[in-house]
């Protein structure tokens, strides 16, 4: 590639603004962590989200004392908010892995400036997701029973159950995401170690960098390991939401027992994940002056991914309706009728508006290039994707086969406190992350610079 194509492609915005050198890139990103003082706004944001995290702790603590009767879950809707929020959070996490692994394999080098915080987002989102099924167990202190281990009860998990698959899928996903994120950080931690003036921070970053010195031999093995991890994470991320959808699809509940679920869940996950990436990236690049690295190009590309995955989700909705008619099953047909005319129908129409109709404005280039517009469109999509999971979980369960077992689901204040609490925990972790670790991969940005090219003699 010549310098021109490396920096700009055609008339589109560049991946990185011209004029940067290895030194300016390093200083710009590492100074946010090392020298820039935390602003009052940061303390305010951190304080509020920290209080919300404490609220989560309170709600969870009360649940440990009183049991899940404090939630709105009951028969017939035994899954409620816990599973809605679990699926919503884990879906959000998927964009991070998509950006870091799949786009790496596809040689989409624009990913280099957003992969680090997208991966952090994945970790925090999966952590939030994991809370819900554990609390939902009923006796959450016995959560370790989910794992196979020799015990005095001589009991073992039932491996024919998708709920056990889910345990393995989600815990593997969290482990691999953590490792991927951490090895991506090692060279940048070495940079922070060498830049830091303070003895203590130098020691901490030094310990975490494990003595990384940038040897050519090390880089070679590092890149191989990184690429292989990306290759492993790619099928993994697709499998995780597939397995989550199996939790539904393997059962015989109308609206759940359908083969469209795995692809439609994965597309929906990436859809909501990119919305969250944009909602985080847009304020971060503004506040920390990172417009040179997270450019219009990144915003526009993310918007295009949302547009594409949003259309796949629309296809999923249409197939669901078609199958309600084509299957000839009166229960499936009733499910569709109930979605459109039942007690929760207003949410169903909101879902269509938020996820399908409204995001079509992304076809307009001007809106794809407007950070403010993208921020609000992303917010609408996140709300829509939450409603989608609400419709899937609650509307399917509350009226299935027997009219005698029809019922309604109303979340309690504890449901809301737990849900809003996890949003607080997620944002609180992001606030800490941007202050203590480089939120953009410094070494991968260096490779994007035209100077990084070795010129042939």
């Amino acid at each position, binding site marked *: 590639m010549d310098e021109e194509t490396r920096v700009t492609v055609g008339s589109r915005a560049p991946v990185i603004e011209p004029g940067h050198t290895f*030194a300016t890139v390093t200083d710009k990103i590492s100074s946010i962590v090392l020298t820039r003082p935390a602003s009052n706004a940061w303390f305010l944001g951190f304080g509020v989200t920290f209080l919300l995290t404490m609220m989560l702790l309170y709600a969870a603590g009360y649940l440990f004392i009183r049991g899940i009767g404090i939630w709105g879950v009951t028969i017939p809707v035994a899954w409620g908010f816990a599973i809605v929020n679990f699926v919503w959070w884990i879906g959000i996490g998927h964009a991070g892995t998509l950006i870091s692994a799949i786009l790496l394999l596809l040689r989409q080098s624009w990913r280099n400036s957003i992969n680090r915080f997208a991966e952090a987002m994945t970790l925090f989102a999966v952590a939030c997701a994991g809370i819900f099924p554990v609390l939902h167990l009923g006796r959450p202190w016995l959560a370790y029973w989910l794992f196979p281990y020799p015990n005095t009860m001589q009991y073992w998990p039932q491996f024919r159950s998708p709920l056990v698959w889910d345990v393995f899928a989600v815990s593997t996903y969290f482990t691999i995401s953590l490792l991927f994120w951490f090895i991506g950080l090692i060279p940048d931690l070495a940079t922070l170690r060498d830049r830091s003036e303070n003895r203590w921070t130098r020691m901490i970053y030094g310990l975490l960098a494990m003595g990384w010195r*940038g*040897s*050519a031999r090390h880089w070679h093995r590092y890149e191989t390991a990184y690429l292989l991890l990306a290759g492993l994470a790619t099928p993994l991320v697709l499998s995780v939401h597939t*397995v989550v959808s199996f939790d539904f699809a393997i059962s015989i509940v109308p609206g759940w027992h359908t083969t469209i679920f795995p692809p439609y869940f994965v597309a929906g996950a990436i859809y909501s994940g990119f919305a969250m990436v944009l909602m985080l990236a847009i304020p971060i690049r503004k506040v920390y002056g990172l417009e040179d690295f997270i450019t219009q190009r990144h915003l526009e590309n993310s918007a295009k991914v949302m547009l594409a995955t949003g259309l796949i989700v629309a296809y999923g909705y249409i197939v669901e309706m078609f199958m309600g008619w084509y299957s000839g099953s009166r229960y499936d047909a009733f499910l569709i009728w109930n979605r459109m005319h039942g007690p929760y129908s207003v949410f169903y129409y909101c879902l269509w508006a938020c996820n399908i109709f409204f995001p079509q404005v992304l076809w307009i280039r001007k809106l794809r290039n407007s950070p403010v517009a993208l921020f609000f469109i992303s917010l609408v999509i996140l709300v829509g994707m939450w409603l989608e999971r609400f419709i899937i979980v609650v509307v399917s369960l509350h009226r299935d086969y027997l009219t005698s077992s029809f019922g309604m689901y109303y979340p309690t204040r504890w449901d809301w406190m737990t849900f809003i609490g996890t949003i607080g925990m997620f944002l609180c972790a992001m606030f800490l992350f941007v202050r203590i670790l480089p939120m953009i991969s410094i*070494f991968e940005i260096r490779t994007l610079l035209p100077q990084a090219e070795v010129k042939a003699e």
Partner: protein
Amino acid sequence: MKRDPIYGLMAEFDNPTALVEAARETLNAGYKKIDAYSPFPIEELPEAIGFQKNGVPLVVLVGGILGGLTGYLMQYWISAIAYPVNVGGRPLNSWPAFIVVTFEMTILFAGVAAVFGMLALNGLPMPYHPVFNVPRFAFASKDRFFLIVFSSDAKYERTETRRFLEHLHPRSLSEVPS
């Protein structure tokens, strides 16, 4: 055995092109034990310092195979031997239901092997290393490129090697105390 007080000779360069050229010349001049340091991966560099063997893929493959076997055999043993449950007359070894966990365990073991195998082959963690004794080496993680000839190299000779590195026009040249 008394250690050589000098660990090696280190030359500093401004850009990746100069480093790769210098590394090639040093290798061609007959120096075998050399290494190069850069703030980001450079595709041409491993070959320029004569490094070809990369054990990482094999470690990952072994990890993946072990993971897959562990995953399947664990489920087989649990479901067919240790805790057999008859579900509607289905076979105890109902392998299609075991695919998901087998797959996840394959990925888990391979991924863990990739990270820890890479670190182990690189000899990390290693908080102390002689190259850190050179003050300018702090720039190796920012915008400078370094080439080192180790004193353990057969062809290494203090003045001769210094002269050789000088003719590569480095930005600076330092002896690395061990």
